[in-house]
């Protein structure tokens, strides 16, 4: 029996329990965006000239772009001059040990349930924590160093491993890719960087925890992962934010590069503040995530559990360039109240014998709207490409909505592309059956939903799966009606 199968016992509180604000000393950039602000950020971070130039170029691209207008999202106009683009806990020097970290910050971690020490001891997870814009703590540096693995904050990488960053940044998601990618390229303040050398299997899960803390700020982290030939890494990211009435912008960019026979497993548990019951506040989560399977037989697997954010817009994608490359996308997206999620993936089959697999599970409650939007494109060059997509929606009541937009473009006759989709309502019959066996309605719902998502949850690393299931449970409370 799968022991992780049964984490359905303790029901928490319905309220967003990560909604506290930490009172730490912060340093801010002035509101708004212009070249001076970008220079300010770059200087604050002690960046080399090339980086400053790269940002400024991106800024020019961005200022010529128009914010996109998506049919399925009810997006309030964002005033980009009313956002603080840089906020960082003070002091900003790198911490050598936990003792040097602001005690208020440590309290935050405890509230988040991620006491770093505990993480270290129990799960052997190397962890980086990004609060607002600055990476606060990276654990396990030494162990990783011995293997030649680089895992550090983006700022540090720019300073210490400039060549690698310069070679790869923007190589998967160029600044001109889209409006939010351009914005991020101009103002990104931190994030994580990871390099796995040839033939090295990373011996532990690497993990970054993102937290928006300050009011009126946006978070623009940038993550870059390079897995060299024959390497392997499993990477996790988690996100939370305080409950605030205003909408906060989170526009991240994640780039993955995978060489011959290398594998990257990238998991996300996204729980940004979703706004209140009436749809007030919440994070706008507008993220560009893309992985490049550059090498032959390389593999990138995205797994995401999305329960937070007022608006989620993200399509973790795979460019399957190397022959025999594999792309996977496993997703659970839960929406409640007035949340809107528009998520899915893009699989670009370019190399021969490339395969992709898409499993998307959408759960809608309240008055929310939950869309899957996916593209499978088989290029002329992609002989014998294979794709399988499964998109299932579960509706908890009649007032929510689920939509599926599976796009397919096939330019090579040898391709096999399969798509299956289902929409189901949580039935009285099943609920009654469970209750007749002694389960409360809430437990029954939680069990049914966990069953519905099982295929995706099973892809999460163990420690994360526990957290993800708890989150799912919390988001489900009071959902039936």
């Amino acid at each position, binding site marked *: *029996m*799968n*022991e992780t*199968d*049964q984490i*359905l*016992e303790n029901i928490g509180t319905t309220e967003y329990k990560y909604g506290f604000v930490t009172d730490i000393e912060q340093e801010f950039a002035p509101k708004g965006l212009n070249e001076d602000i970008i220079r300010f950020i770059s200087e604050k971070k002690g960046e080399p000239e090339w980086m400053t130039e790269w940002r400024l170029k991106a800024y020019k691209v961005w200022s010529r772009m128009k914010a996109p207008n998506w049919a399925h999202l009810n997006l309030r106009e964002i005033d980009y001059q009313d956002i603080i683009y840089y906020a960082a806990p003070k002091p900003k020097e790198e911490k050598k040990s936990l003792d040097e970290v602001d005690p208020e910050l440590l309290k935050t971690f405890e509230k988040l349930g991620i006491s770093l020490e505990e993480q270290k001891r129990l799960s052997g997870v190397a962890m980086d924590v990004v609060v607002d814009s600055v990476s606060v703590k990276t654990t396990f540096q030494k162990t990783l160093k011995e293997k030649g693995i680089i895992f550090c904050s983006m700022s540090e990488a720019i300073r210490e491993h400039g060549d690698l960053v310069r070679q790869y940044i923007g190589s998967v998601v160029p600044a001109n890719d889209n409006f939010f990618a351009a914005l991020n390229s101009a103002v990104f303040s931190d994030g994580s960087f990871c390099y796995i050398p040839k033939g090295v299997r990373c011996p532990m899960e690497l993990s970054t925890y993102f937290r928006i803390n300050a009011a009126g700020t946006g978070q623009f982290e940038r993550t870059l992962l390079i897995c060299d030939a024959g390497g392997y890494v499993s990477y996790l990211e988690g996100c939370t934010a305080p409950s605030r009435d205003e909408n906060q912008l989170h526009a991240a960019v994640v780039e993955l590069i995978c060489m011959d026979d290398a594998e990257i497993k990238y998991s996300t548990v996204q729980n940004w503040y979703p706004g209140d019951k009436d749809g007030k506040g919440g994070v706008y989560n507008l993220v560009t995530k893309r992985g490049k399977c550059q090498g032959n037989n390389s593999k990138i697997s995205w797994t995401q559990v999305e329960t937070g954010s007022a608006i989620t817009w993200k399509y973790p994608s795979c460019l399957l360039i190397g022959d025999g490359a594999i792309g996977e996308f496993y997703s659970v997206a839960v929406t409640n109240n007035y949340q809107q999620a528009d998520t899915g993936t893009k699989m670009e089959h370019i190399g021969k014998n490339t395969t992709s697999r898409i499993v998307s599970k959408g759960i809608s409650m309240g008055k929310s709207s939950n869309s899957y939007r996916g593209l499978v494109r088989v290029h002329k060059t992609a002989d014998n490409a294979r794709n399988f997509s499964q998109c299932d929606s579960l509706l908890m009541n009649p007032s929510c909505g689920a939509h599926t937009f599976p796009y397919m473009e096939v330019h090579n006759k040898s391709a096999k592309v399969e798509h299956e989709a289902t929409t189901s309502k949580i*039935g*009285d*019959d*099943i609920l*009654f*059956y*469970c*209750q*007749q*066996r*002694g*389960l*409360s*309605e809430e*437990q029954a719902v939680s*069990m*049914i939903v*966990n*069953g*519905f*998502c*099982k*295929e995706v949850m099973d892809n999460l690393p163990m420690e994360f799966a526990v957290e993800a299931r708890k989150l799912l449970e919390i988001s489900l409370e009071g959902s039936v009606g």
Partner: protein
Amino acid sequence: MLDIQNLKAGINGKEILKGLDLKIGAGEVHAIMGPNGTGKSTLGNILSGRDGYEITDGYVDFDGLNLLEMDPEERAQAGLFMAFQYPVEIPGVSNANFLKSAVNEIRKARGEEPMPAPQFLKLLREKMALVEMKKDFIGRSVNVGFSGGEKKRNEILQMAVLNPKLAILDETDSGLDIDALRIVANGVNKLRTPNNSFIVITHYQRLLDYIVPDFVHVMYEGRIVKSGDKTLALELEAKGYDWIKEEFAAI
């Protein structure tokens, strides 16, 4: 154990149970027979607390509890079990996980600690052997892809694991082959103790060859119109329901 007094209930304004009386003592097995559409499943649903019925009159006492006031899960926790005529499928939820949650919820309601995993697995294996269920069913999703007979057997497995005070078996025999019928009946007989009672809803005498009832009732038009011992079932098998309907019409 169970005392149903003058139960009147319906659905969508249509009266189905029209003043039903039934008393069941501890350790007794009662068979309920009767033509299609007379309200047998409805009775089971109402006793187990399914939503959507209007209860217009009557009282049901279950071991000193006012049954009709309780939530379905409270009834289950108090020891009432229903083996469904049409068991549902729960994708992605393993039999083991489902049953473990049920066992522990029931224990919790009784103020007991959750059952340790090894003990639970032992119990599950033991009961699976009782209903001759293959090992791989432990990890399979509840009823998903089960044959009709396997679903019924799974109901009996759940009953055996949960060990209820009162079990209602709604046509558990229909759709079973001869061997499965024997296995299911055997499962029930093993659970018969001076404390456990059963209501067995069936159309066929053959089940009652294996599960020998203490009482047989005929239900017609939402009421128990005739009661007797096991010989009543034989009489019905031989004569059909017409004589009952005639007797009823004469009243």
